[in-house]
């Protein structure tokens, strides 16, 4: 990955084994924590179907806007027992306008592990119907309460993770190739073409990105399915991110063109293009990796910003952004319903982890810190 400068000897007394960047990353406690949390988030979002007690669309309209289901650990005599819940009932007091949920304590239903629930297909492929935990009807296990339609917030957080977490990477897979190819060609060809191409890139960069984002999102035609919309939003996010990258790549290509080893390779008869690719990629690799790690959170933020205004992922699909929007509708009562903030907290944690890992990665891959004491 990183080219070792030939003939370099570390000026330390005792010889040390050089650690790979990965090992150095892992040794840093913050980065390690970040990686672990990210792994947990991604794996649990991938396995959302079996882990979450309910599916994304499941709803019980009689138990809407409910607070988290109280879980009981003690029986009537005060002894420790296997956790159980009661079914709830909604009452409305016309004097205070308040809806309250009362537990129907005559029925107790235990929390079951590996309970048979709704059918699903993990990642659309593997069928199953066992859920990690849950309760039988008519009780509901809404650990983070339910939303306006009676859907389980906790389950939807898992499914929302699927959208919000993947959009970051998917956007990357589109933006980066575009940026690299665009910048590469521009730097490679040079001259007037280079000039024109860079002007366009600058123009894109000069439009305030947020407005570009909502402008593009607002263009999306109405009759799309949610997955089509998801794909198009990903594309839009990438269209925002490629220009800056293109400029950097172009600069690198331009400088590399004149480097000695390129001239040498040219003299040896290698086609120009292969030449550049062979030399550009390694040089820019570390930059690209760090840039990627730090671009993903920006995509996640953009998506949540979009959904927040209502232009991103739409109901009834869940994404952290549009779930947070629901919290905003109840901002006055937020102190009484703090669980509504959960999507925001998750967004924050995810971005935090990416940034932490990215930081350490940058230090780790920084050639200046390689091999110094």
């Amino acid at each position: 990955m990183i080219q070792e400068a030939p003939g370099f000897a570390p000026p330390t007394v005792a010889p040390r084994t050089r650690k790979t960047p990965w090992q150095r990353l892992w040794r840093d406690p913050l980065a390690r924590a970040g990686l672990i949390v990210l792994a947990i988030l991604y794996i649990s979002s991938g396995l959302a179907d079996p882990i979450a007690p309910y599916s994304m669309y499941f709803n019980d309209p009689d138990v809407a806007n409910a607070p988290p289901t109280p879980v009981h650990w003690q029986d009537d005599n005060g002894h420790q027992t296997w956790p159980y819940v009661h079914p709830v009932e909604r009452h409305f007091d016309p004097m205070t306008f308040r809806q309250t949920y009362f537990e129907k304590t005559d029925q107790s239903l235990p929390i079951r592990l590996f309970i048979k629930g709704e059918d699903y297909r993990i990642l659309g492929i593997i069928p199953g119907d066992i859920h990690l935990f849950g309760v039988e009807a008519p009780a509901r296990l809404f650990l983070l309460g339910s939303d306006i339609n009676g859907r389980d917030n906790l389950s939807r957080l898992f499914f929302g993770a699927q959208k919000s977490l993947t959009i970051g990477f998917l956007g990357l897979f589109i933006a980066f190739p575009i940026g690299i190819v665009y910048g590469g060609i521009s730097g490679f060809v040079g001259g007037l073409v280079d000039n024109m191409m860079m002007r366009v890139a600058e123009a894109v960069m000069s439009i305030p990105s947020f407005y570009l984002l909502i402008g593009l999102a607002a263009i999306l035609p109405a009759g799309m399915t949610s997955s089509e919309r998801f794909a198009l939003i990903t594309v839009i996010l990438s269209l925002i991110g490629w220009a800056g990258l293109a400029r950097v790549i172009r600069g690198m290509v331009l400088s590399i063109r004149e480097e000695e080893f390129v001239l040498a390779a040219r003299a040896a008869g290698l086609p120009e293009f292969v030449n550049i690719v062979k030399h550009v990629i390694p040089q820019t690799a570390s930059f690209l990796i760090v840039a990627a790690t730090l671009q993903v959170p920006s995509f996640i933020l953009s998506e949540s910003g979009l959904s927040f205004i209502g232009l991103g992922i739409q109901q009834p699909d869940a994404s952290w952004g549009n779930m947070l929007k629901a919290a905003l509708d109840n901002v006055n009562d937020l102190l009484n319903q703090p669980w509504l903030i959960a999507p925001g907290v998750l967004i924050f944690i995810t971005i935090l982890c990416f940034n932490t890992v990215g930081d350490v990665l940058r230090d780790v891959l920084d050639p200046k810190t390689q091999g110094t004491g």
Partner: protein
Amino acid sequence: MRALLLCLLAFSLAACTQRDTAGPPQASPTTMVAGAQNGGVAATAIVNFPNPGPFKLVEVNDPRYGKMECWQGRGESGQFGGTFRVSTFGGGPKTFNPWVASDVESSGLGLLLFEKLVDIDAWTGQPYPRLAKSISISPDKREYTITLRQGLKWSDGKPITADDVVFTFATIVARGYGNSSLRDTLSVYGKYPEVSKVDDLTVKFRTAVPFSPFLKMLPNVPIAPKHVVEPITKRPMEAFQGFWDINSDPKSLVVSGRFMLDRYVPGQRIELVRNPNYAMVDKQGRRLPYLDRFVYAIVPDQNTMILKFLGNELDFLDVRAVRGSDAAFMKQKEQSGNFRLYNLGPDDGTTFLILNMTRREDPKSKKPYVNPLKQKWFNNQYFRQAVSHAINRQRMIDNVLRGVGIPLYTPETIASLYFNKKLKPYPQELDTAAKLLEQGGFTKRGDRLYDSEGHPVEFTLHTNAGNSTRDGVCVMIADELKKLGMKVNYQAIDFNTLIDKTNQSLDWEAIVMGLSGSKTEPQDGANVWKSDGRLHMFDQRLPNEQGKVIVTDAREWEKRIDRLFDLAATSFDEKKRHEYFDEFEEIVYNQLPFIYLYSILDITAARNTIGNYTPTPLGVFYTPLGSLHNLEEIYFKKARQ
């Protein structure tokens, strides 16, 4: 008065179904409550301030102008002084010119600045003279002789005379300066009334045929100061748009209302100051309004408004500010915030589901607007009735409005003077729905519903994006229709796109939307119910190349509704008018071109330091006037600076 009794009757009937909600935390296993709480909120005390009777005319001697005929306030005597702070949400008014105003916010500002010739009484919902002192109607019901009060002055001291009235109606409105809808609301069969001056204080209107809603439509038009506005009308019409626009000097406006425009802080606030020439007095003969200043802040949404109110930056929250989801929270804060919530009963707006019943082809593309398969379903009365019976309205209210709303089955809101109380509400009845579908030729096989030709029933449901309430409603409808075997694909789209679909492209299948209405005059909805109406959404006829709307395929009941509206418009017999509108509502109840869902409750919040706040269900206007129908008498119990 009668309306109030009707309302009380309706609500006490509903209250009889109310369950005892004060039960202990442990309910018995058999009492699952969904639906039975309906009576709850309907039985909550709706404001019931006693009707003080009509205004009294008194003669006042103004030191500057001499004799002035003033109305006497009907509330208690209050104290002078103070700044009343309220808020509206949105972007703020677009113009200061009330004749150009086409949006609610600009019209709302106009209500504060300009007095009406004739206004609607907050208790009875009937028209009464406001700038005028008397109205007389000729025996043939076509002529209205309206006499102004003596001695009235504009805010710049010039007299308000019949010239101003004639100028307003014969020039501004008749010729279509500004918002040409004003002309339409006053016209019957497309004919605008003749306006003539009888003497300095008297005006005569002559309608082409007897037009009974005429007096109720007059309040739509503020009277203009001829000496200021006439010069502009001599210029090309576009100049009028720019007259008194949002960038003009606020102090340059010449008004007749309780307040004058003092300052406009763009995007933030509008400040109004007392109009010293306002011709109303209190019971002690002192000139109103009591308040020195009236200030309203422009905020982006309701949440901010509530936060500001609780943070003591506002004194009052008008209708639409306290939503269902806010009601419980606000009620809780009454003590600590030193305010009270007032329940004004059901709002005049409606929320509904419509199915696209258009059967025509797009003349440009020669393709039918709606898939012919689906046309058959939507035009099948059994289908629509089944859909209506499958919806659980009470549960919808419980979920999206947190219980603070009333189910609706008719085009007239329950609070309307013309509400047909014979039309019975019905709860969700899936069995009835299934039977209706069978009668309609549909069969359910397994999970799916098939029409008589074997096609599975599937359609798309739209509503505007970004609105959690509509969203919640659509998800519930899709779920409930699924139980009947229908596959409903719900998609939220941008508001602009939605309007484009309903107004131009007609490319939609089912939509959930809302419209504002009127509690006092169903004729207000003519645009919606007439077959050629601009908002005849379930079967929108579009104007042809020449801009005319020609209706070729009206159904029998559509034609009947057209006829009923025409009859009601030209009949002065109140009893007959009620019959006409009752029949219209019954047709809609059975035919269900609009499947109504619910009405929200109008809840306001006022600090306990505010005096003379006596809101009524019928006295609700565009905010910021809102429920402050007697704004001139509002005062602070201890004058606040």
